[in-house]
């Protein structure tokens, strides 16, 4: 009996089982099953690729973006990770009300578990990216690839931070969901996803790069395809924004946590 006492903090299992359940539930009804998770961003990519390669076709020759399709693909996958992750993290507590009101499990495990799903899809998408890289005979430099992985990890932290703030908050303010959906589509255009940042006026760059998501997407593309890296001050600023956001999110979460069950 005393052995059992030791093990009651089963956070890992909890997160894992919740994530697994999410995954099973989400893709159970559809014919294509798990494939659909990868297919849907891919379809978006195909459309955008067709449209914008036509637009940027001439530009590519005259110092425009190299490997535009690959740039678009990587950017889309990163942004998809962000929008998928934030949305599900935001709704995590709301959709698992029973786990909040009928029992005590650490609430952050629910939030984190909901991001696992988006991460899994993202990892599957990485395989797709690798396949496309092979198709285009493109090999990024080792350093830029490591940076990409690092950026992915930072992106995950951003998603969790966002979830920690919004998941308790959406219980109080139901319209945050709609607001976020609108903001996401604004963000989609305000982020250099299907266009290179250089095409925007010079003065706007520093403002856009203050957004960590835009920073990640921009410098992933730059480092992989143009061999261009951000300078240390930019990195420092970027990391401190992310860190500050993360700490802020924990602070908000800790403040909200005791009252979460009452919001429902």
């Amino acid at each position, binding site marked *: *009996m*005393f052995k*059992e*006492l*030791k*093990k*009651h*903090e*089963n*956070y*890992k*299992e*909890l997160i*894992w*089982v*919740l994530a697994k*359940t999410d995954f*099973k*539930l989400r893709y*159970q009804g559809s014919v294509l099953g798990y494939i659909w998770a990868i297919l849907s961003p891919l379809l978006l990519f195909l459309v955008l690729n067709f449209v914008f390669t036509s637009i940027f076709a001439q530009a590519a020759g005259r110092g425009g973006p190299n490997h535009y399709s690959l740039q678009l693909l990587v950017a889309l996958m990163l942004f998809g990770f962000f929008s998928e992750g934030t949305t599900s993290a935001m709704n995590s507590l709301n959709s*698992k009300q*029973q*786990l*909040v*009101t*009928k*029992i*005590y*499990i*650490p609430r*952050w495990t629910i939030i*984190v578990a909901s991001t696992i799903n988006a991460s899994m899809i993202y990892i599957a998408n990485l395989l797709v990216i690798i396949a496309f890289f092979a198709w285009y005979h493109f090999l990024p430099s080792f350093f830029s690839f490591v940076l990409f992985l690092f950026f992915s990890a930072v992106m995950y*932290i951003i998603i*969790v931070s966002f979830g920690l703030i919004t998941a308790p908050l959406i219980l*109080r*303010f*139901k*319209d*945050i969901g709609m*607001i976020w959906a609108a903001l996401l589509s604004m963000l989609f255009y305000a982020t250099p996803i299907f266009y290179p940042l250089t095409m925007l006026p010079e003065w706007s760059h520093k403002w856009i790069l203050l957004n960590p998501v835009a920073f990640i997407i921009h410098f992933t593309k730059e480092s992989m395809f143009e061999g261009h890296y951000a300078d240390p001050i930019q990195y420092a600023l970027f990391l401190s924004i992310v860190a500050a956001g*993360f*700490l802020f999110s*924990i*602070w908000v*979460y*800790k403040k909200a*946590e*005791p*009252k979460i*069950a*009452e919001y429902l």
Partner: protein
Amino acid sequence: MKNNNQQSNKTTRTSPPLKGGIEGWLEDENLEKTPASAGVTVSGHSCAKVNQSVIERETTWVEDRNLADKKKPLQNSKNTSRCASTKDNDGSSSALQCATTDKKEIVIKVKNASKIFRIPHKKIDSLRSMFVNMGKGISTYEEFNALKNVSFEVKKGEFFGIIGKNGSGKSTLLKILAGVYSQDEGEVEINGLISPFLELGIGFNPELSGRDNIYLNATVLGLTEKEIDEKFDDIVKFAELEKFIDQQLKNYSSGMSVRLAFSVSIHANRDILLMDEVLAVGDSNFQKKCIDIFEGYSDTNRTVILVTHDIAAVRKYCDRAMLLHNGQMIKIGEVNDVCDEYVMKNMSAQARAELEETERMKEKEKKRERRIEKEQRNKKKIKEKNKITDIRIFDKEGNDLTILTKGDSFLVYVYVSVQKIVADLHVAIQIFDKSTNQMICDNNTARNKFDCDWKIGENVFVLLFNNSMFNQGEIYFKAFLYFEDSRGIIEKFCGEKEELKIIKVKQQEGYGGGIMCIEHKWSKID
């Protein structure tokens, strides 16, 4: 015990500290490394306060531990595994004893817990309405005090009942114990692992198979994957669902899913169980099964807390109970007392009035009985203390009368020995015809309004009969004392034995039969 590897295993239910960063927080390495997490402290707003109390508590445990070490070396390993250690402010860590071995330890300690819900007059559930309201500048709300200053302790192995009407705060209290709500004031301390039965099958999803649901539910209840693997077959077997375990839950009958949920719950095997009206669901068979199992739990030194308004269940199973009313603890202690109080509180005004009436009647009846008993004793005493000692009949000259002739006058002397004066005590003298035992004449002091004027000692009453009209035969005199009791019953008594005096009557010349000769005269009307 100064060992830095042994980290704090005192977990607070507020989220882990900031300084741990991502590694220390999102991943649970620290938690994995820790020894037993025996203590869970639920804190209100301030962490610092609770930690303080934890430290204080553990300091007192040092002595207990030292004692326990000496006394029970065998149990030592057990105790250390459950022992809480904590880091002091200056960084040195000390592991301390958390359980006394001799007396029953307290597993739940609630001190002055209060909970206030704010109920806004106009519900603000969107940012938009919040801004709109901010424009107006006022947001009013009512405060609902769901719990007021509740304090109690539950010892290990107890079957503890919490009863109260709807809205009395019992579910709120249970949710605070379960950690779902946090109290606004006061402290809640729980030593042990809690398995809340607030609802069966938490996390169950109809789209998933029975197997997946077992893993899901059991994990939510705190089991690790390995434990579930081990217990999986038992769980399925207990639920009697071997054939259906890979079917989707939505295809189960409601009975089947309840069985499954229940099976998972009891296999979770925690040491404190919180139950909220679980017994209200399911058929009586299922309820019995629950209760049997839970009763077994308290035998195995597990603590069960039952929240219900089923008084019968509380009376039957609980060792101790607590009554909540409007968020306040009205009574705690012996089950029957608490239940009686609840029944009283819960009755309608009329029913209560009726009960009070019967209660009053009973009281009255008792009083009456007591009074009667007292009176009986009193009567007995009166009868013992006062008695007629003799009756004597004299003629006018003062000689004993033995033969009575018509026209004689005679005196009846009654000797009464009095040791206790009673105001209403009276004397009666009756004359009977001996051959028929028919009463001929009945005289007593009450009817004749004769003041007895009792005195301690011998009282002699004399009754004069003038001009005897007896004709023949024998007559006898009977004398007795009597008094009327509070119910109007006449108590007659005379002494140790009934005093009778028999006197012969001389046959009169010129009279025929009959016992009387009444003065008479013949005449005729023409």
